[in-house]
């Protein structure tokens, strides 16, 4: 399957194969990040967490690693209840719309160097980052549509909050990334990784941009401390309130897929993508199949680190108040990221003249 094909008419097959592979990796990652979330939260709260489900129909428990199977089965067989007061079409569309953008983002993320002759990216776009921001901001539609369609006060408030929050942090996030591309000179995500090869991670060159981007990703994915859209202590379950069964699970999976997409973006933009500062083997595009797989593994490991961070933070920090959220977004991050752009521009101008 990974044989060298130079015939352009076969490209769509390879692309399709890559799409299937990315799905096959990301879906289990979503499932297991849910398990990780539950286990880590349990440990932080002095509990043990789900440790029972192992291989079905046996007594092998495997530390509870079979939990996604049980969760999935439960979500599928539960009653899918549609309240009478909802707007049905939008209500049915919303979970899909919430989930799709997170996966579409992954299309432009280079998740490895190459396997054989193939670049390990589904769509090697020259406007990669613009595409990403365009798609990421679509994620809010799912939640806003849900809040509108649910026709009930809690999802409505959740949707409004989510909309406002996403818009506020989208700007800070976009501006935070501008210095990265001033340094790199290209918008292609592959080029960003090339620039960072051999340890010149933009995390060290642009710590402020990284901090703002990280926090904005938290807000974009509706994770604590910015989960005002869900905020179960105030809004019951926010946008999830009217949903049950598999539709709820779709929102849930969408959230985790968005976390993975956000982590992938952070890894690509600031942490060197699939590269490691350990010599040429980890920095040059792969020549052998094994090297290519190692690069993919490095990339996945880096994503796992960020996922762990996001999960940990959720159980560490309390939720921001709405006005605090807006203050931080507009009054702190926006000016800071603008200042960062100007500072980077000045430094580049001085260095180049």
């Amino acid at each position, binding site marked *: 399957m990974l044989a060298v094909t130079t015939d352009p008419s076969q490209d769509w097959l390879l692309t399709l194969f890559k799409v299937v592979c990315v799905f096959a990796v990301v879906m289990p990652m979503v499932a297991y990040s849910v398990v990780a979330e539950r286990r880590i939260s349990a440990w932080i*709260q002095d*509990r*043990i967490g789900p440790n029972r489900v192992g291989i079905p129909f046996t007594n092998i428990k495997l530390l509870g690693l079979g939990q996604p199977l049980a969760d999935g089965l439960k979500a599928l067989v539960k009653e899918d209840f549609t309240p009478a007061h909802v707007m049905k079409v939008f209500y049915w569309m919303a979970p899909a719309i919430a989930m799709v953008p997170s996966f579409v983002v992954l299309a432009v993320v280079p998740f490895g160097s190459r396997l054989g002759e193939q670049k390990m990216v589904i769509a090697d776009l020259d406007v990669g980052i613009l595409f990403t921001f365009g798609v990421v901001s679509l994620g809010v539609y799912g939640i806003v549509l849900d809040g509108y369609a649910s026709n009930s006060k809690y999802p409505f408030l959740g949707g409004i909050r989510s909309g406002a929050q996403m818009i506020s942090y989208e700007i800070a996030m976009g501006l935070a990334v501008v210095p990265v591309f001033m340094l790199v000179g290209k918008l292609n995500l592959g080029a960003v990784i090339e620039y960072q090869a051999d340890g010149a991670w933009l995390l060290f060159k642009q710590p402020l941009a990284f901090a703002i981007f990280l926090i904005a990703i938290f807000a974009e994915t509706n994770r604590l401390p910015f989960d005002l859209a869900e905020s179960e202590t105030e809004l019951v379950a926010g946008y999830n309130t009217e949903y049950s069964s598999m539709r709820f699970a779709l929102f849930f999976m969408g959230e985790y897929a968005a976390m993975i997409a956000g982590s992938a973006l952070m890894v690509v933009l600031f942490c060197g993508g699939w590269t490691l500062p350990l010599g040429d083997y980890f920095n040059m595009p792969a020549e052998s199949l094994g090297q290519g797989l190692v690069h993919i593994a490095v990339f996945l490991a880096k994503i796992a680190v960020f996922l762990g961070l996001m999960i940990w933070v959720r*159980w*560490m920090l309390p939720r921001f108040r709405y006005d605090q959220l807006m203050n931080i977004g507009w009054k702190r991050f926006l000016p800071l990221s603008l200042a960062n752009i100007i500072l980077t521009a000045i430094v580049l101008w001085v260095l180049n003249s």
Partner: protein
Amino acid sequence: MKVDRTKLTWWERLYIPSILNGFKVTMRHFFSWKRSKVYGDKQKSYRAKTTMQYPEEKWDVPTGYRGAPYLLKDVDNNTKCVSCQLCEFVCPPRAIRITPPGGGGVVEREGAEKMPDEFEIDMLRCIYCGYCQEVCPEEAIYLLKDYAITGESREELIYDKEKLLELGGADKRAYDHHAQDGVAEGVKKWETKMREASEQPKFH
């Protein structure tokens, strides 16, 4: 009402001290690996997980807990119940049904005139009030510590005599059950009963 807000310093307003503190606290709890028993000493240690692995570990219920009523046997492994039917009459939800021996029936031990042919308790009806234990002159029925009565059908949860006797066990267990926490009243009553029983004239 005027709420006094503490004026935060510039450093504090960066949220960084709070984040570091939160990290410290979560780290400490995350690495608390020690397994612990339910209640008891584990409550004193923050380095212990609080989860009880339920079906394997169970609550150690306090003395005087009214669990499921079971029938007891005496030290010689004979049924203590004498089929007086007081518990049946006193039972508020009518969960107990006793079939008396009528004319015949087996008498297992000395000092008793008859034994129940059948003794059924419907665990779904039982309200664990303890009246049966209170009223029993022979201390043959006891509310033990079982609190998780489960079954797959209604019929399964009507416990018959054999099952009740098996679950209740010998009176030694009842003795221990109440003696272990230093509560002596039940025990004394039982001892008195035994003395009275031994002083009764023997019919043979």
